[in-house]
């Protein structure tokens, strides 16, 4: 049942729980119970809203920053990752295989704000060897959702 609940709420976290229970053919209490457990176990880590800020007319700049770091003895990358993810400006931090170590995404109001964070805070960390900042120009798809307007139903009545 967990997988089924997760599959449904991954697409729509605001789904009515009673409705979800009906669709899964189980009692509502069972769904509520399972959700609470998964929240406690941190399987479900949050319920967020996917916003097209462009459309809202609100300026936002997002950057994906490739960071090369020196891992610390006994800590690996965790310690330096923690130092970075604790900044509220930082949206996500991933440990990456390949040419660099951490992928940091950052959201700011202006280009300046983001670059300032990189130069003042990120690059100055002792373990950080180098950074490469990639600004996002356009989001086509985010969290599995295509940002463009969904296409119209073109099917015709046919039996």
């Amino acid at each position, binding site marked *: 049942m967990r997988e*089924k609940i997760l*599959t*449904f709420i991954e697409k729509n976290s605001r789904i009515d729980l009673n*409705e979800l229970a*009906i*669709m*899964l*053919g189980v009692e509502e209490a069972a769904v509520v119970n399972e959700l609470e457990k998964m929240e406690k176990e941190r399987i479900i880590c949050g319920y967020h809203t996917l916003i097209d800020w462009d459309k809202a007319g609100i300026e936002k700049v997002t950057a994906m920053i490739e960071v090369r770091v020196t891992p610390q003895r006994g800590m690996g990358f965790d310690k330096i990752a923690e130092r970075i993810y604790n900044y509220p400006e930082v949206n996500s931090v991933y440990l990456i295989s390949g040419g660099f170590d951490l992928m940091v995404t950052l959201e700011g109001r202006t280009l300046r704000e983001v670059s300032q964070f990189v130069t003042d805070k990120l690059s100055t960390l002792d373990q950080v060897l180098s950074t490469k900042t990639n600004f996002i120009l356009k989001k086509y798809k985010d969290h599995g959702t295509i940002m463009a307007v969904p296409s119209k*139903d073109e*099917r*015709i*009545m*046919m*039996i």
Partner: protein
Amino acid sequence: MRDPLSKTIVNIQPSGIRKFFDIVSEMEDAISLGVGEPDFDTPWHIRDEGIYSLEKGRTFYTSNAGLKELKVEIAKFLKRRYELEYDFNKEILVTIGGSEAIDIALRAMLDPGDEVLIPQPSYVSYVPCAILANGTPVIIELKAENEFRLTAEELEAAITPKTKILVLPFPNNPTGAVMERKDLEAIAEVVIKHDLFVLSDEIYSELTYVEDTKHVSIASLPGMKERTIVINGFSKSHAMTGWRLGYACGPEVIIKQMLKIHQFAIMCAPTTSQYAAVEAMRNGDEDVAAMREEYNGRRRFLMHRFKEMGLECFEPFGAFYVFPCIKEFGMTSDEFATELLKAKKVAVVPGTAFGDSGEGFIRISYAYSLDNLKLAIGRIEEFITELREKRQ
């Protein structure tokens, strides 16, 4: 001038539902629950394979019976899903959708005067195709109290010395009914006793919703493979309606004659679609499972809402239709559908579009997003509440 037309064709009644559909298409803000095809797009990896085949210039005819790779994959699919064993080389024919397969199977098997048993409510093409094949359609009226399954008694009662073929359209459009193994066993016994053949239209076979009623093909029962043509395709399972691709499987003697008609009338199924379908068969099981899960949720939601409204409906276990009963309102299916459209701008299909035995029922398709279904069902609820108030 002489009459340019064939009497056989002229005498075939055009589908009466067309008029109703025209009204729907003119009404701009109508919510439709009327379509008979998936709301999902064909999964991208399948479309991508079609595009790739075009890029590579695979724009020629394939062999008449279809691409070898595709036939091999179809044989594997039928084995893993339904325990059916067909020789890809001699017993599988790739067609333009299931519809062509229905047509040419009947044409390959019927002589003038042969009777074809057609259970109804069912898809609209069996009767005209039987007539075009010089056969005589004989209708078996399925009953709501049997959950619209075909019973051995009903079958037995319809058989005459002229009966040759039984059309078996399950999982069923429009009722959503399925035939479980025990139901099929009873049918198979009668079929074998009377030396009949079965045209088993299993186009919705991948869309069944209860584990213990997982689709069973009648051809997998003992003694039935040699007297069954199985029809299936990609339209409903892989959301590939527009690709026009289906197939027929059966005994070599029949497939060989069907191939002859196919060869002269069609040449071969579309090449691009065939390459895309290879991908669908190889890597598409998960897509189908995901769509099935989604349909199942909607199906449960509709059944729940009908119960809340007190609208009588047996629980369908297949396809993507529900077939609620509207007899309590004292209207014909046609009147009900027309009034509902006029008053609430919701389009459903009157049961009579699928045969006289559909009278008193409407077909609701749940090949629509949940939001769409919620909105439409809300309006139907308003409509029937008003009808009930009026009738009191």
